[in-house]
């Protein structure tokens, strides 16, 4: 039971971060119906940029965060401008393939500039631990959990209550209608990619703080995809719940069946959900008319 409590706690902690990355995934899917397979590598690049500010240039924690997040926003915008924008009007297939190739390029950029070995460890959160009965939670993971939840809440409130958020939800409904109402779809898409870049980078920093800065961080992208799908590809709230679910599944399965079983188990769940609930738990069922 003690072991079970421990892995459940760990699963929820990681799940919040998967949820955060999945929100970025959902954001891009909602606005342009592109499955962004490069999310994990955007996370990787963002985390490595943070590491450069924090460890290589030895800047203050807050300052390096303040420098990283705009850079991450810019990274998202650049990716949209250089790769997705020229493909407007092309088939969905090419848009999705471009994100797949983007993941190759981003991984290549990271290993070109930072090498393939794990980087020096950086502490982000204060040390310490909390005890709940028999389960011990490190302050690190609690901070990460809290921060991930706060950021996600902020994003959801942003979608619901700001003008820009409203415009984004409009873009998700249909490009032509929104365009005719005087909202620039291109600008919204750019902002969506920027926010997705920031969300991914935050996830990367939080995970890098606990797991270390290494190329393996990109695997989180592989976990964010089932998280987004299970929650429903159109729903940010669903992404959070999906993230927590995926975190739990991954942690429980890898706790009892060995570490390597975690990720495959989440994909088995993904395929089962696809069979019985093809639009996820919170997704919109598309009814198509000719």
């Amino acid at each position: 039971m003690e072991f079970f409590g421990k892995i459940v706690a760990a699963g929820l902690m990681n799940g919040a971060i998967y949820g955060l990355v999945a929100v970025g995934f959902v954001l891009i899917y909602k606005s342009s119906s592109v499955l962004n397979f490069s999310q994990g590598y955007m996370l990787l690049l963002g985390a490595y940029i943070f590491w450069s500010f924090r460890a290589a240039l030895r800047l203050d924690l807050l300052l390096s965060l303040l420098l990283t997040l705009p850079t991450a926003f810019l990274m998202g915008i650049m990716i949209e401008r250089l790769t997705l924008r020229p493909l407007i009007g092309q088939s969905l297939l090419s848009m999705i393939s471009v994100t797949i190739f983007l993941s190759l390029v981003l991984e290549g950029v990271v290993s070109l500039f930072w090498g393939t070995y794990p980087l020096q460890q950086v502490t982000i959160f204060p040390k310490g631990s909390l005890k709940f009965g028999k389960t011990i939670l490190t302050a690190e993971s609690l901070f990460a959990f809290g921060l991930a939840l706060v950021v996600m809440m902020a994003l959801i409130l942003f979608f619901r209550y700001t003008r820009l958020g409203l415009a984004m939800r409009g873009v998700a409904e249909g490009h032509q209608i929104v365009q005719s109402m005087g909202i620039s779809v291109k600008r919204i898409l750019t902002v969506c990619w920027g926010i997705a870049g920031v969300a991914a980078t935050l996830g990367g920093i939080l995970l890098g703080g606990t797991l270390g800065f290494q190329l393996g961080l990109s695997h989180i992208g592989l976990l964010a995809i089932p998280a987004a799908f299970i929650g429903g590809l159109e729903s940010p709230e669903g992404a959070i719940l999906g993230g927590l679910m995926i975190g739990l599944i991954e942690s429980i399965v890898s706790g009892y069946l060995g570490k390597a079983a975690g990720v495959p188990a989440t994909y088995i769940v993904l395929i089962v959900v696809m069979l019985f609930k093809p639009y996820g738990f919170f997704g919109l069922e598309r009814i198509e008319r000719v």
Partner: protein
Amino acid sequence: MAHTSFYPPSGIYSDSYRKDMRIVKTKTQWLMSVVFLILLFTIPQIPFFNSPYFLRLLIGAGITVIICLGLNILTGYCGQLNIGQSAFVMVGAFTSGLLNSYLGWSFWTCVIPAGLASAVVGAIFGIPSVRLKGLYLALTTLGAQIILTWIALFYIPLTAAGFNVDPIRIGSLVFNTPSKFYYIAMLFTVIMTFFAKNMMRSGPGRAFIAIRDNDIAAEAMGIDIFRYKLFAFIVCTFYAGVAGSLFVHYMMWAHLESFTLHDSIWYVVMIIVGGLGSIEGTIFGVIFIIGLKELIFVIGPMAEGKLPFLPIGAGSGLLLVIIGGVAILFLIFEPRGLAHRWNLFKAYYRLWPFGY
């Protein structure tokens, strides 16, 4: 010049449907095909070209062509994305390898079962996603890549360590060196290419194209979308399985390292560079990317040596950036791939000197 590929050379009229559907339309094309085939099968005898290094490259290209043909039938003709193709190659390779090393079946008896095993596994993964609209097959095939690799790693004890497979034999002839195996690889490549080319002018091939272009219209015309999408995926994985069987009998062992997610993505790069929905394009794409890769394997270490500020592993990073970058550039600037360039060239040649 939009559809130049559909213009035959001057003086060639397709006055019946049969004539219009011919793969080889003119006498020159017949002559060129025969000359090409003869050249293809005499390369191991031609001095200067018959170095083991070059032959190994060609064998690798041949096997990759088979894999990518399957992928192009699915992605290029039917419009479904598959980013787990190398996992299905693995299924074929391990089926063939295990049948050979445990039951002693020869290559000739286990190549078809290997393809079928891949197709069955493919169908299992395909069923949940092909009934959804959109590109959900990309998600399940990504899942297939992860799940199948994990199953192979933990539940097939032999495969994790690698195992020994007999080379291919015909009677007393053993195909165990590159210069001998070359014939087998090219034989299969030619047969599979012809099969793919032929399939695309048959009923199922046209159904695939209809689904790709407009699935609602296709359904309205009476095409069972679920069945044909699944069928395209099964054909795709069958090709992968056959290629896997060839691969395992060529290498005479198999290891998980040969079947990674990266490989799967490379196959997608190859068909996109070559041209989606083009059988010739698949071959061009494979040759282009394999050539590029060899070039970077030469340049990469040189760059790492010359530029000391680059970290360890920068060479592999360079490879990824260039391959990924080339694929993105092709998608943006030449989405129809090298095949389209080839058609433009053919049109130029046919119309010269009046190419306006």
